[in-house]
Protein backbone atom coordinates (compact mmCIF):
# COMPACT_ATOMS: atom_id res chain seq x y z
CA UNK A 1 0.00 0.00 0.00
CA UNK A 2 1.40 3.36 -0.98
CA UNK A 3 1.42 5.98 1.78
CA UNK A 4 -1.21 8.60 1.18
CA UNK A 5 -0.33 12.13 0.25
CA UNK A 6 -2.64 13.58 2.87
CA UNK A 7 -3.18 17.29 2.88
CA UNK A 8 -3.02 18.61 6.44
CA UNK A 9 -5.02 21.63 5.24
CA UNK A 10 -8.02 19.34 5.64
CA UNK A 11 -7.56 19.60 9.38
CA UNK A 12 -10.18 22.33 10.02
CA UNK A 13 -13.08 20.14 8.90
CA UNK A 14 -11.88 17.40 11.14
CA UNK A 15 -11.54 19.77 14.06
CA UNK A 16 -15.07 21.01 13.54
CA UNK A 17 -16.26 17.45 13.81
CA UNK A 18 -14.22 16.89 16.95
CA UNK A 19 -15.54 20.05 18.56
CA UNK A 20 -19.05 18.89 17.87
CA UNK A 21 -18.79 15.31 19.01
CA UNK A 22 -15.72 14.68 21.13
CA UNK A 23 -16.62 17.36 23.64
CA UNK A 24 -19.28 14.97 24.84
CA UNK A 25 -21.44 16.03 27.76
CA UNK A 26 -24.25 13.90 29.17
CA UNK A 27 -26.65 16.79 28.69
CA UNK A 28 -25.55 17.32 25.10
CA UNK A 29 -28.67 17.61 22.96
CA UNK A 30 -27.09 15.79 20.05
CA UNK A 31 -26.62 12.72 22.20
CA UNK A 32 -30.21 12.94 23.32
CA UNK A 33 -31.03 12.28 19.69
CA UNK A 34 -28.50 9.70 18.52
CA UNK A 35 -30.00 9.38 15.05
CA UNK A 36 -29.59 13.10 14.40
CA UNK A 37 -26.09 13.01 15.85
CA UNK A 38 -25.21 10.14 13.58
CA UNK A 39 -26.63 11.88 10.49
CA UNK A 40 -24.74 15.08 11.27
CA UNK A 41 -21.56 13.21 11.99
CA UNK A 42 -21.84 11.19 8.82
CA UNK A 43 -22.28 14.37 6.79
CA UNK A 44 -19.25 15.95 8.45
CA UNK A 45 -17.29 12.79 7.77
CA UNK A 46 -18.30 12.69 4.10
CA UNK A 47 -17.34 16.32 3.69
CA UNK A 48 -14.02 15.81 5.40
CA UNK A 49 -13.14 12.65 3.54
CA UNK A 50 -13.66 13.93 0.00
CA UNK A 51 -10.83 12.96 -2.33
CA UNK A 52 -8.94 11.23 0.46
CA UNK A 53 -7.04 8.08 -0.51
CA UNK A 54 -7.58 5.19 1.84
CA UNK A 55 -4.46 4.34 3.81
CA UNK A 56 -5.53 3.37 7.29
CA UNK A 57 -4.09 -0.12 7.56
CA UNK A 58 -2.30 -0.48 10.94
CA UNK A 59 0.25 -2.96 9.62
CA UNK A 60 1.07 -0.37 6.97
CA UNK A 61 1.66 2.12 9.78
CA UNK A 62 4.29 -0.21 11.25
CA UNK A 63 5.98 -0.43 7.87
CA UNK A 64 6.07 3.37 7.74
CA UNK A 65 7.63 3.50 11.22
CA UNK A 66 10.31 1.10 10.02
CA UNK A 67 11.26 3.57 7.29
CA UNK A 68 11.52 6.36 9.86
CA UNK A 69 13.82 4.45 12.21
CA UNK A 70 17.37 5.66 12.80
CA UNK A 71 19.57 4.63 9.91
CA UNK A 72 22.76 4.47 12.01
CA UNK A 73 21.71 2.61 15.20
Amino acid at each position, binding site marked *: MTPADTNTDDMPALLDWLDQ*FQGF*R*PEDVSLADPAAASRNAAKAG*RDAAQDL*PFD*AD*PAGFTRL*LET*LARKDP
Partner: protein
Amino acid sequence: MTKPADPTFMSLTEAAAAIAAGDISSRELTEACLTRMTALDPKVNAVAGLDEAEALAQAEAADQARAKGGTLGPLHGVPLAHKDMYYRRGRITACGSIIRKDFRPDYTATALQRLDAAGALDIARLNMVEFAFGVTGHNDVVGTPKNPWNTDHMTGGSSSGSGVAVASRMCFGALGSDTGGSIRLPAACCGLVGMKPTYGRVSRHGAMPLAYSLDTVGPLTRTVRDNALIMQTIAGFDANDPVTADVPVGDYLSGLDKDLRGLKVGLPESFFYEGVTSEIRALVEASLKVFEDLGCEIVPVKIPDAVAVMNRLTNLITATEGAAVHTRWLTERASDYGPQTRARLAIGLFTPASVYLRVLTLRKQLVREFCDQVFGKVDVLHTPLMTMPVPTLAESNMSANPGFADYLLKIGHNTRPGNFLGLPGLNVPCGFTPDGLPCSFQLMGRPFDEGLLYRAGHAYQQATDWHDRAPDLG
Protein backbone atom coordinates in the same frame (compact mmCIF):
# COMPACT_ATOMS: atom_id res chain seq x y z
CA MET B 1 11.47 6.83 52.70
CA THR B 2 13.41 3.85 53.97
CA LYS B 3 15.43 1.00 52.56
CA PRO B 4 15.46 -1.82 55.08
CA ALA B 5 17.34 -5.08 54.62
CA ASP B 6 14.49 -6.78 52.82
CA PRO B 7 15.05 -8.80 49.61
CA THR B 8 12.02 -7.21 47.97
CA PHE B 9 13.96 -3.93 47.94
CA MET B 10 16.52 -5.28 45.50
CA SER B 11 16.17 -4.23 41.91
CA LEU B 12 14.98 -6.85 39.41
CA THR B 13 18.52 -7.05 38.03
CA GLU B 14 19.95 -7.61 41.51
CA ALA B 15 17.31 -10.22 42.31
CA ALA B 16 18.03 -12.18 39.12
CA ALA B 17 21.76 -12.06 39.84
CA ALA B 18 21.23 -13.17 43.46
CA ILE B 19 19.19 -16.18 42.37
CA ALA B 20 21.69 -17.11 39.66
CA ALA B 21 24.53 -16.90 42.18
CA GLY B 22 22.66 -18.96 44.75
CA ASP B 23 22.62 -16.11 47.26
CA ILE B 24 18.86 -16.40 47.61
CA SER B 25 16.32 -18.92 46.37
CA SER B 26 13.36 -18.11 44.20
CA ARG B 27 11.14 -19.47 46.96
CA GLU B 28 12.61 -17.08 49.57
CA LEU B 29 12.13 -14.16 47.23
CA THR B 30 8.61 -15.21 46.30
CA GLU B 31 7.63 -15.68 49.94
CA ALA B 32 8.93 -12.19 50.70
CA CYS B 33 6.86 -10.72 47.86
CA LEU B 34 3.75 -12.63 48.91
CA THR B 35 4.20 -11.46 52.49
CA ARG B 36 4.26 -7.83 51.35
CA MET B 37 1.33 -8.40 49.03
CA THR B 38 -0.77 -9.87 51.80
CA ALA B 39 0.21 -7.23 54.32
CA LEU B 40 -0.01 -4.14 52.11
CA ASP B 41 -2.76 -4.87 49.64
CA PRO B 42 -5.58 -3.93 52.04
CA LYS B 43 -4.05 -0.41 52.01
CA VAL B 44 -3.37 0.00 48.30
CA ASN B 45 -5.61 -2.50 46.43
CA ALA B 46 -3.16 -3.56 43.75
CA VAL B 47 -4.05 -7.25 43.49
CA ALA B 48 -6.88 -8.61 41.36
CA GLY B 49 -6.10 -12.27 41.86
CA LEU B 50 -3.55 -14.27 43.83
CA ASP B 51 -2.95 -18.01 44.12
CA GLU B 52 -0.17 -18.30 46.69
CA ALA B 53 0.21 -22.06 46.30
CA GLU B 54 0.62 -21.70 42.54
CA ALA B 55 3.16 -18.88 42.98
CA LEU B 56 5.21 -20.96 45.40
CA ALA B 57 4.99 -23.98 43.08
CA GLN B 58 6.48 -21.85 40.28
CA ALA B 59 9.27 -20.79 42.64
CA GLU B 60 9.98 -24.38 43.69
CA ALA B 61 10.19 -25.41 40.04
CA ALA B 62 12.64 -22.56 39.37
CA ASP B 63 14.82 -23.62 42.29
CA GLN B 64 14.77 -27.24 41.16
CA ALA B 65 15.76 -26.23 37.64
CA ARG B 66 18.67 -24.24 39.00
CA ALA B 67 19.75 -27.15 41.21
CA LYS B 68 19.91 -29.40 38.14
CA GLY B 69 22.46 -27.02 36.65
CA GLY B 70 20.65 -26.23 33.43
CA THR B 71 20.93 -23.00 31.49
CA LEU B 72 19.02 -20.26 33.26
CA GLY B 73 17.09 -17.52 31.54
CA PRO B 74 17.85 -13.88 32.34
CA LEU B 75 14.79 -13.61 34.61
CA HIS B 76 15.10 -17.04 36.19
CA GLY B 77 13.06 -17.32 39.38
CA VAL B 78 12.21 -13.62 39.65
CA PRO B 79 8.64 -12.86 40.82
CA LEU B 80 6.76 -10.61 38.41
CA ALA B 81 3.03 -9.85 38.28
CA HIS B 82 1.02 -8.31 35.47
CA LYS B 83 -1.94 -6.19 34.57
CA ASP B 84 -5.05 -8.39 34.58
CA MET B 85 -5.48 -8.27 30.80
CA TYR B 86 -2.76 -10.71 29.69
CA TYR B 87 -4.24 -14.06 28.79
CA ARG B 88 -2.83 -17.15 30.42
CA ARG B 89 -4.37 -20.43 29.36
CA GLY B 90 -6.92 -21.63 31.92
CA ARG B 91 -6.50 -18.70 34.32
CA ILE B 92 -9.08 -15.98 34.83
CA THR B 93 -8.35 -12.71 33.01
CA ALA B 94 -10.95 -10.22 34.23
CA CYS B 95 -9.69 -7.03 32.50
CA GLY B 96 -10.75 -4.89 35.47
CA SER B 97 -14.37 -5.63 34.68
CA ILE B 98 -17.48 -7.41 35.83
CA ILE B 99 -18.17 -8.51 32.27
CA ARG B 100 -15.00 -10.63 32.03
CA LYS B 101 -14.81 -11.70 35.68
CA ASP B 102 -15.10 -15.40 34.80
CA PHE B 103 -13.23 -15.34 31.48
CA ARG B 104 -10.62 -18.09 31.14
CA PRO B 105 -8.67 -17.85 27.87
CA ASP B 106 -7.56 -20.99 26.10
CA TYR B 107 -4.16 -19.65 25.09
CA THR B 108 -1.33 -17.60 26.61
CA ALA B 109 -0.22 -14.15 25.52
CA THR B 110 3.01 -13.98 23.55
CA ALA B 111 4.54 -11.53 26.05
CA LEU B 112 3.83 -13.94 28.91
CA GLN B 113 5.20 -16.87 26.90
CA ARG B 114 8.44 -14.98 26.37
CA LEU B 115 8.72 -14.05 30.06
CA ASP B 116 8.03 -17.69 30.97
CA ALA B 117 10.79 -18.81 28.63
CA ALA B 118 13.17 -16.35 30.33
CA GLY B 119 12.38 -17.99 33.65
CA ALA B 120 10.24 -15.27 35.23
CA LEU B 121 7.48 -16.17 37.67
CA ASP B 122 3.97 -14.76 37.25
CA ILE B 123 2.68 -14.56 40.82
CA ALA B 124 -0.48 -12.43 40.65
CA ARG B 125 -3.00 -10.61 38.49
CA LEU B 126 -2.96 -6.86 39.07
CA ASN B 127 -5.85 -4.42 39.14
CA MET B 128 -6.45 -2.03 36.28
CA VAL B 129 -8.92 0.49 34.95
CA GLU B 130 -12.02 -1.17 33.54
CA PHE B 131 -11.04 -2.49 30.09
CA ALA B 132 -7.94 -0.23 30.25
CA PHE B 133 -10.02 2.77 29.23
CA GLY B 134 -8.97 5.51 31.66
CA VAL B 135 -5.96 7.52 32.78
CA THR B 136 -6.67 8.35 36.42
CA GLY B 137 -6.75 4.79 37.82
CA HIS B 138 -10.34 4.90 39.04
CA ASN B 139 -12.38 1.77 38.56
CA ASP B 140 -16.09 2.13 39.34
CA VAL B 141 -16.85 -1.59 39.09
CA VAL B 142 -14.09 -3.56 40.84
CA GLY B 143 -12.38 -0.95 43.00
CA THR B 144 -9.72 1.72 42.69
CA PRO B 145 -6.04 1.18 43.64
CA LYS B 146 -4.38 3.78 45.85
CA ASN B 147 -1.06 5.54 45.44
CA PRO B 148 1.54 4.02 47.78
CA TRP B 149 3.24 7.41 48.25
CA ASN B 150 0.00 8.83 49.65
CA THR B 151 -3.13 6.75 49.59
CA ASP B 152 -5.32 9.84 49.18
CA HIS B 153 -3.89 10.32 45.69
CA MET B 154 -4.60 8.70 42.34
CA THR B 155 -2.32 6.04 40.86
CA GLY B 156 -2.69 6.99 37.23
CA GLY B 157 -4.03 4.45 34.81
CA SER B 158 -4.87 2.31 33.23
CA SER B 159 -2.06 0.03 34.51
CA SER B 160 -2.88 1.18 38.04
CA GLY B 161 -2.21 -2.06 39.92
CA SER B 162 1.05 -2.56 38.02
CA GLY B 163 2.29 0.82 39.22
CA VAL B 164 1.19 0.23 42.79
CA ALA B 165 2.54 -3.33 43.09
CA VAL B 166 6.00 -2.52 41.74
CA ALA B 167 6.34 0.69 43.79
CA SER B 168 5.15 -1.18 46.90
CA ARG B 169 7.81 -3.89 46.37
CA MET B 170 5.20 -6.64 45.94
CA CYS B 171 7.01 -7.80 42.78
CA PHE B 172 10.07 -6.77 40.76
CA GLY B 173 8.36 -5.63 37.61
CA ALA B 174 5.02 -5.75 35.84
CA LEU B 175 3.61 -5.55 32.35
CA GLY B 176 1.23 -2.73 31.62
CA SER B 177 -0.33 -1.60 28.37
CA ASP B 178 -0.32 1.88 26.85
CA THR B 179 -2.97 3.15 24.44
CA GLY B 180 -2.97 6.81 25.55
CA GLY B 181 -0.51 6.88 28.45
CA SER B 182 -1.50 3.83 30.48
CA ILE B 183 2.05 2.68 31.23
CA ARG B 184 3.71 6.09 31.56
CA LEU B 185 1.04 7.74 33.71
CA PRO B 186 0.93 5.13 36.50
CA ALA B 187 4.73 4.92 36.32
CA ALA B 188 4.87 8.71 36.80
CA CYS B 189 2.30 8.78 39.60
CA CYS B 190 3.97 5.89 41.47
CA GLY B 191 7.62 6.93 40.95
CA LEU B 192 8.59 4.21 38.47
CA VAL B 193 10.19 3.73 35.09
CA GLY B 194 7.69 2.93 32.35
CA MET B 195 8.35 2.25 28.67
CA LYS B 196 5.72 2.69 26.00
CA PRO B 197 7.51 1.05 23.07
CA THR B 198 7.23 1.85 19.41
CA TYR B 199 3.94 0.64 17.91
CA GLY B 200 4.71 -2.83 16.60
CA ARG B 201 7.77 -3.44 18.80
CA VAL B 202 6.03 -5.87 21.21
CA SER B 203 3.35 -8.39 20.28
CA ARG B 204 -0.18 -7.77 21.59
CA HIS B 205 -1.25 -11.34 20.87
CA GLY B 206 -3.17 -12.48 23.93
CA ALA B 207 -3.45 -8.98 25.38
CA MET B 208 -6.98 -7.63 25.78
CA PRO B 209 -7.53 -5.19 22.90
CA LEU B 210 -8.64 -1.63 23.53
CA ALA B 211 -7.64 0.15 20.32
CA TYR B 212 -5.90 -1.99 17.75
CA SER B 213 -4.19 0.95 16.03
CA LEU B 214 -2.69 2.31 19.25
CA ASP B 215 -2.25 -0.47 21.81
CA THR B 216 1.28 -1.20 23.01
CA VAL B 217 2.70 -3.58 25.62
CA GLY B 218 5.52 -2.60 27.97
CA PRO B 219 7.00 -2.89 31.47
CA LEU B 220 6.89 -0.85 34.68
CA THR B 221 9.95 -1.24 36.88
CA ARG B 222 11.96 0.58 39.51
CA THR B 223 15.07 1.14 37.38
CA VAL B 224 15.79 1.73 33.72
CA ARG B 225 18.09 -1.30 33.62
CA ASP B 226 15.28 -3.51 34.94
CA ASN B 227 12.96 -2.12 32.31
CA ALA B 228 15.45 -2.81 29.53
CA LEU B 229 15.85 -6.38 30.79
CA ILE B 230 12.13 -7.08 30.49
CA MET B 231 11.85 -5.28 27.15
CA GLN B 232 14.77 -7.31 25.80
CA THR B 233 12.76 -10.41 26.62
CA ILE B 234 9.39 -9.45 25.17
CA ALA B 235 10.28 -7.35 22.10
CA GLY B 236 10.34 -8.69 18.58
CA PHE B 237 8.32 -10.01 15.68
CA ASP B 238 5.40 -12.32 16.31
CA ALA B 239 3.48 -13.92 13.49
CA ASN B 240 0.40 -13.89 15.72
CA ASP B 241 0.33 -10.07 15.74
CA PRO B 242 0.46 -8.80 12.15
CA VAL B 243 1.47 -5.30 13.19
CA THR B 244 4.69 -6.37 14.87
CA ALA B 245 7.72 -5.07 13.06
CA ASP B 246 10.33 -7.26 11.48
CA VAL B 247 13.06 -4.95 12.76
CA PRO B 248 15.88 -6.58 14.76
CA VAL B 249 15.74 -5.96 18.51
CA GLY B 250 18.94 -4.23 19.58
CA ASP B 251 20.97 -5.24 22.61
CA TYR B 252 19.43 -2.81 25.08
CA LEU B 253 21.58 -3.93 28.00
CA SER B 254 25.07 -3.83 26.55
CA GLY B 255 24.62 -0.25 25.38
CA LEU B 256 23.36 1.08 28.69
CA ASP B 257 26.68 2.29 30.09
CA LYS B 258 27.88 4.22 27.04
CA ASP B 259 28.35 7.85 27.98
CA LEU B 260 26.05 10.51 26.60
CA ARG B 261 28.57 13.12 25.49
CA GLY B 262 27.40 14.80 22.34
CA LEU B 263 23.86 13.47 22.53
CA LYS B 264 21.38 16.09 21.35
CA VAL B 265 18.51 16.38 23.82
CA GLY B 266 15.55 18.35 22.51
CA LEU B 267 13.83 20.95 24.66
CA PRO B 268 10.36 21.55 23.18
CA GLU B 269 9.60 25.19 22.44
CA SER B 270 5.85 24.62 22.45
CA PHE B 271 3.00 22.27 23.41
CA PHE B 272 4.68 20.01 26.00
CA TYR B 273 5.08 22.85 28.55
CA GLU B 274 1.54 24.19 28.10
CA GLY B 275 -0.21 24.25 31.48
CA VAL B 276 2.82 22.90 33.35
CA THR B 277 2.78 24.02 36.98
CA SER B 278 5.76 25.78 38.52
CA GLU B 279 6.75 22.86 40.78
CA ILE B 280 6.71 20.40 37.88
CA ARG B 281 8.63 22.79 35.67
CA ALA B 282 11.35 23.24 38.31
CA LEU B 283 11.87 19.48 38.73
CA VAL B 284 11.82 18.72 35.00
CA GLU B 285 14.22 21.57 34.23
CA ALA B 286 16.54 20.28 36.97
CA SER B 287 16.56 16.89 35.24
CA LEU B 288 17.53 18.59 31.99
CA LYS B 289 20.49 20.14 33.79
CA VAL B 290 21.64 16.62 34.72
CA PHE B 291 21.74 15.73 31.03
CA GLU B 292 23.70 18.89 30.35
CA ASP B 293 26.18 17.92 33.08
CA LEU B 294 26.49 14.49 31.46
CA GLY B 295 27.76 16.17 28.30
CA CYS B 296 24.56 16.35 26.31
CA GLU B 297 23.76 19.29 24.09
CA ILE B 298 20.39 20.81 24.97
CA VAL B 299 18.73 21.94 21.75
CA PRO B 300 15.50 23.98 21.67
CA VAL B 301 13.25 22.39 19.08
CA LYS B 302 10.08 23.55 17.39
CA ILE B 303 7.20 21.12 17.77
CA PRO B 304 4.86 20.77 14.76
CA ASP B 305 1.60 22.64 15.39
CA ALA B 306 -0.41 19.53 14.52
CA VAL B 307 0.64 17.93 17.83
CA ALA B 308 -2.00 20.10 19.49
CA VAL B 309 -4.81 17.95 18.09
CA MET B 310 -3.24 14.54 18.61
CA ASN B 311 -4.64 14.18 22.10
CA ARG B 312 -8.19 14.39 20.77
CA LEU B 313 -7.44 12.32 17.69
CA THR B 314 -6.05 9.57 19.91
CA ASN B 315 -9.29 9.70 21.89
CA LEU B 316 -11.28 9.39 18.70
CA ILE B 317 -9.38 6.31 17.54
CA THR B 318 -9.60 4.72 20.98
CA ALA B 319 -13.32 5.33 21.38
CA THR B 320 -14.09 4.13 17.86
CA GLU B 321 -12.02 0.95 17.95
CA GLY B 322 -13.07 0.32 21.55
CA ALA B 323 -16.71 0.64 20.59
CA ALA B 324 -16.19 -1.93 17.84
CA VAL B 325 -14.74 -4.40 20.38
CA HIS B 326 -17.51 -3.73 22.89
CA THR B 327 -20.57 -3.38 20.65
CA ARG B 328 -22.23 -6.59 21.79
CA TRP B 329 -21.66 -5.98 25.48
CA LEU B 330 -22.75 -2.36 25.17
CA THR B 331 -26.04 -3.70 23.84
CA GLU B 332 -26.50 -6.69 26.10
CA ARG B 333 -24.72 -5.75 29.32
CA ALA B 334 -24.67 -1.97 29.45
CA SER B 335 -25.44 -1.88 33.16
CA ASP B 336 -22.32 -3.94 33.94
CA TYR B 337 -20.03 -1.12 32.80
CA GLY B 338 -18.93 1.75 34.97
CA PRO B 339 -20.50 5.04 33.86
CA GLN B 340 -17.33 6.62 32.46
CA THR B 341 -16.28 3.54 30.49
CA ARG B 342 -19.77 3.19 29.04
CA ALA B 343 -19.99 6.88 28.12
CA ARG B 344 -16.59 6.93 26.45
CA LEU B 345 -17.22 3.75 24.48
CA ALA B 346 -20.66 5.01 23.44
CA ILE B 347 -19.07 8.08 21.87
CA GLY B 348 -17.18 5.76 19.55
CA LEU B 349 -20.41 4.28 18.21
CA PHE B 350 -21.14 7.62 16.55
CA THR B 351 -17.86 8.09 14.72
CA PRO B 352 -18.45 8.02 10.96
CA ALA B 353 -16.22 5.42 9.33
CA SER B 354 -14.97 8.01 6.89
CA VAL B 355 -13.74 10.27 9.69
CA TYR B 356 -12.09 7.39 11.50
CA LEU B 357 -10.24 6.22 8.41
CA ARG B 358 -9.25 9.74 7.60
CA VAL B 359 -7.71 10.23 11.04
CA LEU B 360 -5.66 7.04 10.62
CA THR B 361 -4.48 8.23 7.25
CA LEU B 362 -3.59 11.65 8.58
CA ARG B 363 -1.52 9.92 11.25
CA LYS B 364 0.97 8.77 8.65
CA GLN B 365 1.46 12.27 7.37
CA LEU B 366 1.92 13.67 10.86
CA VAL B 367 4.47 11.11 12.02
CA ARG B 368 6.61 11.87 8.99
CA GLU B 369 6.35 15.58 9.74
CA PHE B 370 7.15 15.07 13.45
CA CYS B 371 10.17 12.85 12.81
CA ASP B 372 11.49 15.25 10.20
CA GLN B 373 11.06 18.41 12.29
CA VAL B 374 12.05 17.01 15.68
CA PHE B 375 14.32 14.04 15.14
CA GLY B 376 15.96 15.73 12.20
CA LYS B 377 17.50 18.04 14.81
CA VAL B 378 17.80 16.06 18.04
CA ASP B 379 18.38 12.48 19.16
CA VAL B 380 15.78 12.42 21.93
CA LEU B 381 13.02 14.79 23.03
CA HIS B 382 12.80 15.60 26.76
CA THR B 383 9.36 16.64 28.10
CA PRO B 384 7.41 16.73 31.35
CA LEU B 385 5.31 13.56 31.65
CA MET B 386 2.43 15.17 33.55
CA THR B 387 1.70 18.85 33.59
CA MET B 388 0.51 18.91 37.20
CA PRO B 389 1.33 17.28 40.55
CA VAL B 390 -0.40 13.93 41.10
CA PRO B 391 -4.06 14.79 41.87
CA THR B 392 -5.96 13.33 44.79
CA LEU B 393 -8.41 10.49 44.21
CA ALA B 394 -11.26 12.84 45.07
CA GLU B 395 -10.36 15.64 42.68
CA SER B 396 -9.66 13.23 39.82
CA ASN B 397 -12.81 11.15 40.35
CA MET B 398 -14.65 12.38 37.28
CA SER B 399 -16.87 9.35 36.59
CA ALA B 400 -19.16 10.56 33.75
CA ASN B 401 -19.71 14.00 35.22
CA PRO B 402 -19.78 17.09 33.00
CA GLY B 403 -16.26 18.11 32.10
CA PHE B 404 -14.72 14.66 32.42
CA ALA B 405 -13.56 14.61 28.80
CA ASP B 406 -11.61 17.85 29.21
CA TYR B 407 -10.06 16.64 32.45
CA LEU B 408 -8.88 13.40 30.88
CA LEU B 409 -7.39 15.34 27.98
CA LYS B 410 -5.41 17.39 30.50
CA ILE B 411 -4.05 14.31 32.27
CA GLY B 412 -2.97 12.73 28.98
CA HIS B 413 -1.73 15.96 27.39
CA ASN B 414 1.89 14.82 27.03
CA THR B 415 1.36 11.10 26.58
CA ARG B 416 -1.23 10.72 23.83
CA PRO B 417 0.86 12.31 21.06
CA GLY B 418 3.30 9.41 21.46
CA ASN B 419 0.50 6.92 20.92
CA PHE B 420 -0.89 8.78 17.95
CA LEU B 421 2.56 8.92 16.36
CA GLY B 422 3.53 5.38 17.38
CA LEU B 423 6.78 6.64 18.92
CA PRO B 424 8.55 5.19 21.97
CA GLY B 425 8.33 7.09 25.26
CA LEU B 426 10.24 6.39 28.47
CA ASN B 427 9.02 7.76 31.81
CA VAL B 428 11.78 8.42 34.35
CA PRO B 429 11.18 9.76 37.90
CA CYS B 430 13.00 13.02 38.66
CA GLY B 431 11.99 14.06 42.16
CA PHE B 432 9.03 14.85 44.35
CA THR B 433 6.61 17.74 44.49
CA PRO B 434 6.17 19.51 47.86
CA ASP B 435 3.27 17.20 48.75
CA GLY B 436 5.63 14.18 48.56
CA LEU B 437 4.28 12.72 45.29
CA PRO B 438 6.62 11.65 42.47
CA CYS B 439 7.35 13.73 39.37
CA SER B 440 8.79 12.44 36.09
CA PHE B 441 10.14 13.49 32.74
CA GLN B 442 9.57 11.69 29.46
CA LEU B 443 12.10 10.86 26.77
CA MET B 444 10.65 10.38 23.30
CA GLY B 445 12.59 8.97 20.38
CA ARG B 446 12.50 7.90 16.79
CA PRO B 447 10.66 4.69 15.94
CA PHE B 448 12.50 1.65 17.38
CA ASP B 449 14.97 3.82 19.32
CA GLU B 450 14.13 2.21 22.66
CA GLY B 451 17.82 1.39 23.15
CA LEU B 452 18.83 5.05 23.03
CA LEU B 453 16.04 6.04 25.42
CA TYR B 454 17.19 3.36 27.85
CA ARG B 455 20.80 4.54 27.55
CA ALA B 456 19.83 8.14 28.32
CA GLY B 457 17.47 7.18 31.14
CA HIS B 458 20.05 4.88 32.71
CA ALA B 459 22.72 7.58 32.62
CA TYR B 460 20.30 9.91 34.40
CA GLN B 461 19.64 7.30 37.10
CA GLN B 462 23.36 6.71 37.57
CA ALA B 463 23.75 10.42 38.28
CA THR B 464 20.75 10.68 40.65
CA ASP B 465 19.13 8.57 43.34
CA TRP B 466 15.39 9.19 42.94
CA HIS B 467 14.87 5.57 41.90
CA ASP B 468 16.24 4.36 45.24
CA ARG B 469 13.46 6.05 47.20
CA ALA B 470 10.59 3.86 48.33
CA PRO B 471 7.18 4.74 49.73
CA ASP B 472 6.78 4.16 53.46
CA LEU B 473 3.74 1.91 53.82
CA GLY B 474 4.45 0.97 57.41
